């Protein structure tokens, strides 16, 4: 099966990726070949098989004591932010 330009535009939008005009034909063809390749799976008989999400399935999520374990690293972490003001992250106006 082959993906169309519209398919790729839709996927790129869902993934929040801008794709340039130059890149577009490359993605249409390479994503089509990847989808064709993984389509091999459709021939496998998986009836009655439970999906596996994780290699160590016996493990369950651990509980920990409800104690403070983290200190405040606000300033340190914001040093990596592209734009901050008054301790807040700055983004373009969302609500007019």
């Amino acid at each position, binding site marked *: 099966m082959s*993906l169309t330009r519209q*398919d*790729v535009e839709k*996927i*790129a*939008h*869902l*993934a*929040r*990726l*801008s*794709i*340039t005009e130059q*890149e577009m034909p*490359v*993605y249409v063809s*390479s*994503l089509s*070949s*990847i*989808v064709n*390749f*993984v*389509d*091999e*799976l*459709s021939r*496998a008989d*998986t009836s009655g*098989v*439970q*999906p*596996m*999400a*994780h*290699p*160590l399935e016996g*493990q369950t*999520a*651990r509980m*920990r004591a409800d104690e403070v374990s983290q200190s405040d*690293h606000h300033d*340190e*972490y914001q*040093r*990596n*932010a*592209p*734009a901050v003001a008054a301790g807040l*992250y700055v*983004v*373009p*106006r*969302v609500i007019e």
Partner: protein
Amino acid sequence: MLHNLFIGELAERLVKRQISSVELTRHFLSRIERLNPALNAFITLTAERALEDAAAADARLGKGEKGPLLGIPLIHKDIFCTSGVKTSCGSRMLDNFVAPYDATVVARLKGAGTVMLGKSNMDEFAMGSSNETSYYGPVRNPWDISKVPGGSSGGSAAATAARLAPVATGTDTGGSIRQPAALTGVTGLKPTYGRVSRYGMIAFASSLDQAGVFARCAGDAAAVLQAMAGFDPRDSTSVDVPVPDYSKALGAPLKGLKIGLLREFFDGLEPRNAALIEEALNIYTGLGAETREVSLPRLPLSVPTYYVVAPAECSSNLSRFDGVRFGYRCKDPKDLLDLYKRSRGEGFGAEVKRRIMTGTYVLSAGYFDAYYLKAQKARRMITDDFRAAFEKVDLVIGPTTPTPAFDIGAKMNDPVLMYLNDIYTIGANLAGLPGVSVPCGFVDGLPMGLQLIGPHFAEAKLLNAAHQYQQATDWHKHAPRGYE
């Protein structure tokens, strides 16, 4: 020369004060300065800090402290967060990112007294099998600089092979330690999923990613794994299973060890590659091991399964890079959507975008069952095949890669061809199994790897099998010309 010694030998000289860690560190730093420009194995060099760490190690040694890694230089793959040091993951997205904390792997190895020389080059976000997707340019293979070193941990592999450090860390999601280890002629260990903490290791595919080690022999890999392994409450999939003494396990004779030859790995194998594996099997029979054929009939599904599961997890993990909290932000975004799309579009390279889109597609409405759920079922069938094989044998054996290192640029325009490089390594990741690649000879003057895979938590047995092979052969002692 110092750079040809194994860490056991280096540690002995350090403890006896025949050499200081500062001297050893300077030796490797000067090799890096001289030899790395041709290889591009590093993203960041941390020379000053290395000399401080080395001086601290010397002070500890001076007080009579001993340790297998105390004062030993190493390199960390640039996927591990290192406090106060740029951690780029090979991406423009994180070109300006300075990690605010150490990954558990980094902290543990620092605690053991290692000296960090720098951060190694890698495929962007560990997505690649050739190290050509790095924002910082390809790494070159020291055996032939027109060839790739493999990927994604190509910088760590090339640097270990070129003797720019005795050992290096790496990560393996679909073969990213074992494949570059094979293509550069070094020993590469991928532990069991959950054996080593993933805390502070930038996530690609969380159900597959595992940290491991590059070394020039299995004994060195054992010493490094010893320091890395163990339970970490900060990684929810870290396993609370006791860590055995890996170095102590290296003496066990192989008499009676049952080794399974993976029939699927030998089907269509290039004859010269097959001959090297046959030769390795003869060594093992000579050491008293029993070999028999085993079949994993569903293993051929592993590459398509992986290229659904890994991109799906990657598309989810990489959604955190939004141009808001850290990482690259585009210039003059006109609104929030434009900020997201252009920051990600400009910050990620071509292969990362391709995988994010593949993942988005297989998880999208209407395709989830046909691709993602189907792949998760295939994953269980492959895992069941391994489980059945390990009821009959202790370890399975085969080649690490289908071919030796290929030319830079040869596979960049055909992602599926590139993906097929991982055909022998991916199965272990899907099932969460430990695997090791050891050098087993040469094809066209380029090194080839022998791969051993074991059941969950069989690292000691694997390392011992690799060690016994290296006692009987000297493939792991060959150095690329110009790096001896």
